[in-house]
């Protein structure tokens, strides 16, 4: 976890600013703070919250969203968005259920399901890169297509999965941990590692940060973008298999709204929709925070309608704190209020009006540059 607290923006020891006594923590630190705060609230709200069984429930429920969140993150970091992850997950459950019913082996089933979903991702990527359709529209179309295909393949209502091997793999447990949690953990760590230490991770951050600069530096921008969508489709397929294992069925109706949950996880985790920032571990933390809040509200016995409202508010708050430099702004505002400065020297909330997210020393020209960038690089 310390990796997330020391992401690239952290200054090296030799560079620590002299006049600051307490180093200012990065956005990820606030995320962890929110995570712990929600945990404390849960503990206070219900004695049942901190039991092993409940925590396991949270983890299992969050595992699917976590994997989808990672899939979403990989696309968002390239300035894209993938609205089709929920539908692709549903397609995956149906393909798996149909194949297993036909008596196809578990390994072959998994391979076929994942490859089909990766293919759907490939179509997304090709549409975005070569047909120049904006990611929102291209994946919106795929969202509809994938669910439609799932309906067609399924023929009729949901298909029950009775293959014990498959159920053991995606519904069982290894040691103390449910397998889905293990899978989510492995996916998260692998993605975090790849984003930080592999060339493809560096290239994705670069092309999300400034596509034009990446292209003019000779990076294979088109290929990498397609790869991001393929990976997203693949991971959505994996999430689908996890869902199938949990529900022991394949159905074209599952996973509705998961595309939005995955975006919420990424965004609560501090990922900017403008690309080039964030990291998988923070995204998964975001998924866990959302999952915990839902769990707490269930424990306390809040109706499902107010739950939606509260969840929305919490997402806003978390995003304000993590990516909007919220704490810093609140602190500035409070300082300005307490100090009551003389008329000649005012400061306060408005002073940071131009502050871009996560910016140490923003300049007006930077703000202008940020405004012009999308224009220049847009199709």
């Amino acid at each position, binding site marked *: 976890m310390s990796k997330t607290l020391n992401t690239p923006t952290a*200054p090296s020891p030799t560079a620590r600013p002299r006049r600051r006594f307490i180093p200012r923590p990065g956005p990820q630190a606030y995320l962890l703070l929110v995570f712990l705060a929600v945990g404390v609230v849960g503990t206070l709200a219900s004695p049942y919250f901190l039991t092993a069984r409940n925590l396991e429930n949270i983890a299992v429920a969050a595992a699917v969203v976590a994997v989808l969140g990672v899939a979403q993150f990989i696309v968002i970091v390239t300035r894209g968005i993938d609205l089709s992850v929920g539908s692709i997950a549903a397609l995956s459950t149906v393909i798996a259920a149909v194949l297993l019913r036909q008596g196809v082996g578990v390994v072959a089933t998994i391979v076929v399901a994942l490859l089909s979903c990766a293919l759907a991702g490939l179509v997304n990527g090709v549409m975005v890169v070569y047909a120049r359709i904006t990611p929102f529209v291209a994946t919106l179309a795929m969202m509809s297509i994938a669910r439609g295909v799932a309906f067609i393949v399924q023929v009729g209502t949901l298909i029950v999965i009775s293959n014990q091997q498959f159920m053991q793999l995606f519904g069982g447990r290894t040691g103390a941990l449910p397998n889905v949690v293990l899978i989510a953990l492995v996916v998260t760590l692998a993605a975090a590692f790849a984003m930080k*230490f*592999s060339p493809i991770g560096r290239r994705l951050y670069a092309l999300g940060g400034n596509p034009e600069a990446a*292209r003019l530096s*000779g990076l294979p921008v088109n290929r990498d973008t397609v790869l991001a969508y393929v990976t997203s489709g693949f991971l959505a397929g994996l999430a689908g298999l996890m869902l199938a294992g949990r529900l022991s069925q394949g159905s074209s109706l599952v996973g509705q709204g998961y595309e939005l949950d995955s975006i919420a996880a990424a965004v609560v985790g501090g990922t900017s929709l403008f690309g080039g920032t964030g990291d998988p571990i923070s995204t998964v933390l975001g998924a866990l925070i959302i999952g915990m809040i839902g769990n707490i509200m269930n424990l306390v016995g809040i109706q499902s309608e107010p739950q939606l409202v509260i969840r929305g508010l919490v997402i806003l708050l978390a995003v304000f704190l993590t990516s909007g430099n919220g704490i810093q702004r609140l602190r500035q505002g409070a300082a300005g209020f307490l100090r009551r400065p003389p008329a000649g020297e005012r400061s306060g909330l408005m002073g940071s009006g131009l502050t871009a997210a996560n910016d140490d020393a923003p300049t007006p020209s930077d703000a202008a540059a940020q405004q012009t960038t999308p224009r220049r690089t847009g199709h």
Partner: protein
Amino acid sequence: MANSALEVTGIHKSYPGVQALRGVDLRVAEGEVVGLCGANGAGKSTLVKILSGAEQPDGGGIAVGGEVQGLATPHAARQAGICTIYQELSLVPQMTVLDNIFLDDFRRRGMVVRRRGLETVARRLLGRLGADVDVHTRVADLSIAKQQLVEIAKALKSEPAMLLLDEPTTTLPPRDVEALLSLMRDLARDGVGLIFISHRLDEVTGVCDSVEVLRDGRKVTRFDRPPPHHEIVRAMVGDRYENSLAAAAAEGAEGKLGGVAQQDVVLEVDGVTDGARLQPCSFQVRRGEVLGVTGLLGAGQNELAECIFGIRPVTSGRTIVAGRTVPPNKPRKSIAHGIGLIPEDRKTQGLVLDMSAMKNMTLASIDRFTSFSMLQGRREAAHARRFVEELQIKCSSVDQRVRTMSGGNQQKVLLARWLTRDSRVLLLAEPTRGVDVAAKEEIYRLIRRHLRGGGAAVVVTSEVSEAALCDRVLVLSNGRIVAEMDHDQIQADHDGFLAHLR
């Protein structure tokens, strides 16, 4: 003594890791033009940001027209009577000139847009600037020079007491620079106080009543009348003066960028054209040679560079590097063949602003720092640190984001990217634009280093004096190569050289 339009006392400002301003005083009288000079990182931009309300000082006072003001926001600064023209324009390209001029002033529009009245005002403002612009044109369809005038018209509309011009002339062609400078004199005559920032010292000494020099966040010198250039340069660079070639050049010594050309041709451009603005262009560059390509703004020199690198579609012609033909229209292939581009606009085309200096340096050579599919972080950092030291890049560490670095240092990071890749041919588009004299010399030093290492360079520049430093110069006019002169010819016949610029 005239009343002061602006009085700044003891301004302090620090950023994480940097003390940007350490107690700066500045006084501008009504009707006075004050030139503000300083190397990159001297604190000019910070001072401008504070005066324009974009940043808050840590301490000190600001008085406009004798009244103490807190400039909490850019809007408050405008209300107080300080208008700022930035180098990067802040216009909405999709909107018309008229809408842009009145973008920040809805009061005049009332509930119903009184177009006719606004048009008259807009026309008068533009007329005062000598700008021949139809108020109904979309800003995106205007040249940069005209956009600049629209920006100034927008500022003048509120009759400011103080006008800050932060490198307004950088992107203007010479004729429009003249017009702007004389306009500044007119405004001063009307009682407006002006602060003028420019890296071109002849402009500063030509238009200003007095010159203030900042160095390392302090005011070091105030000249009450424009001094000779070398005195300003001396004040700007301080101790580094003695070994600064810039200062030598300013005192009239002869500067030269190349001088180590060998026989073998590295880059051959054969009839390259984009089928539109650029006529077929052919030339050769030898190993160790630096070729200047110049022309007036929009003469086609940047288009030529873009065609060679593969950004701008080439309809016919070939580019050959070291005997191998480069597939056209693919920057990736151009890079693989050993061409590196320092683009004209480093912020949008060159740098990933939110990435660290290190990651920007190694961006074109990621494979070099990869083994077994993993980035070698330690090797990468060591390499970056060596370059930071060698190129004297000012940063708190190699992990500093380039967004927070000054223009000159950003440019060095870009140079480091191609030096890291060992590119044979460097294409440099306006390499020293928006960069101070000291950093300019640093960049020249790096180009020389590249040439001595057996590389070749093409410097595309609209600064005639910069082109004149090269071994050989091509002059473009209207998309055509109209002249080719070598260094000695230019030195012997400067007027003849300038005559080609049309």
